[in-house]
């Protein structure tokens, strides 16, 4: 994907965005509301047409994606409330019929943890169960590439952990996953690489541990001296700790060394003022 652009009137929703995803990777796109995550994803999914740029998804321009291409991708949309009157099994069986080589319905039911709810109507499911059905429908066609758009919004922490386990399983099976999320810990838990989109541009694209130079940036060393808390930011925390150890002749009271969290790096990236035009 090269120089992707999309404007609504004068609003440049996506403004020259480049992104490469390797097969088998899980990539998370982070960014504030209105940053262009969903617009980007929907262009990749073939729902929206771009104004400029070069896009290939599984080797195909999504604006020209045909049924054969659709059979190779799976899409889990935000906010879908359909299929309320069908049972989970009926929905999965019906959607499996659209694909040339679907997974067996019972296998999908197991995978998304809905075997016990197989005969329940869609409208009786909880929010988390509904989302699992959405994922089930997204994977029933054995996609090579799966899009997950904010899949765990509104989940309680336990449901979110269970959902992560499900995504891990799909990763282990070799699927490529493009995930958009508001949750930094979700990106950290699942993604091989994290892309931060703000104002329609990709401002960082790194493994979660290295986002925005997180692994090389300065660390903060805190300790207590003369009853006072002390802290120092340093590029060489090991040297500082060694010096402190020498000074105290052993244990340094209340010693901690912290690197910026993913959240710190994310907020720093997103808060950068707009470049002058």
């Amino acid at each position: 994907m090269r120089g992707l652009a999309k404007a609504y009137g004068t609003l440049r929703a996506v403004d020259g965005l480049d992104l490469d995803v390797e097969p088998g990777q899980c990539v998370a796109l982070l960014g504030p509301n209105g940053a262009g995550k969903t617009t980007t994803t929907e262009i990749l999914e073939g729902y929206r047409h771009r104004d400029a740029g070069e896009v290939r998804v599984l080797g195909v321009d999504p604006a020209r994606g045909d049924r054969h291409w659709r059979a190779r991708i799976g899409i889990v949309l935000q906010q879908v409330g359909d299929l309320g009157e069908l049972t989970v099994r009926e929905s999965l069986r019906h959607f499996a019929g659209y694909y040339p080589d679907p997974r067996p319905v019972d296998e999908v039911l197991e995978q998304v943890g809905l075997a016990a709810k197989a005969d329940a109507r869609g409208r009786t499911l909880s929010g988390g169960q509904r989302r699992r059905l959405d994922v089930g429908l997204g994977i029933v066609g054995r996609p090579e590439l799966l899009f997950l758009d904010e899949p765990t919004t509104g989940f309680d922490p336990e449901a979110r952990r269970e959902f992560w386990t499900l995504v891990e399983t799909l990763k282990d099976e070799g699927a490529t996953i493009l995930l958009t999320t508001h949750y930094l810990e979700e990106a950290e838990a699942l993604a091989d690489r994290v892309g931060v989109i703000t104002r329609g541009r990709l401002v960082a694209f790194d493994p979660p541990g290295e986002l925005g130079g997180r692994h090389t940036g300065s660390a903060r060393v805190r300790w207590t001296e003369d009853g006072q808390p002390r802290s120092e930011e340093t590029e060489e925390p090991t040297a500082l700790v060694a010096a402190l150890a020498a000074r105290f002749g052993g244990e340094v009271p209340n010693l901690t060394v912290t690197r910026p969290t993913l959240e710190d790096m994310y907020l720093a990236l997103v808060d950068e003022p707009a470049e002058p035009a």
Partner: protein
Amino acid sequence: MRTPTQRPGGSADALPPATAARLPGPLALGRSRVGVELRQLFRDREAAVFTLALPMILMIVFGSVFGDQELGPTGITFAQYFVAGMIASGIVYTSFQNLAIGIPQERDEGALKRLEGTPMPKAAYFLGKVGQVCLVYVLQLALLMAIGVALFDVELPSTAAKWGALAWLSLLGLTTWTLLGLAFSSVPKSGKGASAIVTPIILVLQFTSGVFFLYNDLPSWMQQFAALFPLKWLTQGMRYVFLPEEAAVLEVAASFEMPRVALVLVAWTALSAVLAGALFRWRRRGDG
């Protein structure tokens, strides 16, 4: 995004032919859609009542209140006249009302967007709707005829010509009103507001087309208004099917004018096909 199957400047043909050959066909998927459409309609009590039961309820209520009134010297009761109008209205309920209210709701729920994201051929969706409409109509027609015969002394069509007319009226009526339903499904801004727009339109057409009142008794401007739309002609055709020959004197032209009915319905079918093609949309305004 790159995958091992990508070729430089890759295109849709960068695909193993085995997969290409095995995509299920639109007809088989259309049949599968009919099953899903029927299940969704009958399990949703509101939609089932509105689409299937409403004309039966109206027939029983109106038929019982005004049923015994005789229309002029013909010996025909209002109930019999009304049965013909309700069967014509049944076409509008099962196709136009069903689709013009149901599709905006599907669009709001994201059902259409989800389908668009799958390899389902779009023809399968429309085949599913057509199949659902036809089966619900046939069921409704049978029930309405049974109620008419059992409660209101309506006689079933007595000649092959009348049965034939019932068949082509149903076919042309369903085609026109199904296409109009697809076209009109893009008019309501939301699924919730759809019935507030669609129901009054149907009521106005019914009042002016001779469903609830004797068409001959309506003011002529009202008759001329209704004559612009297909329900008036369907109703007139159904009177030919379900009323005896003598009832022709109740018509404005003292005849059921069946050739003209056919002509108008064919013209409306063509017009509604153009409207459906131009207006139907898969997504809400502003969504892509």
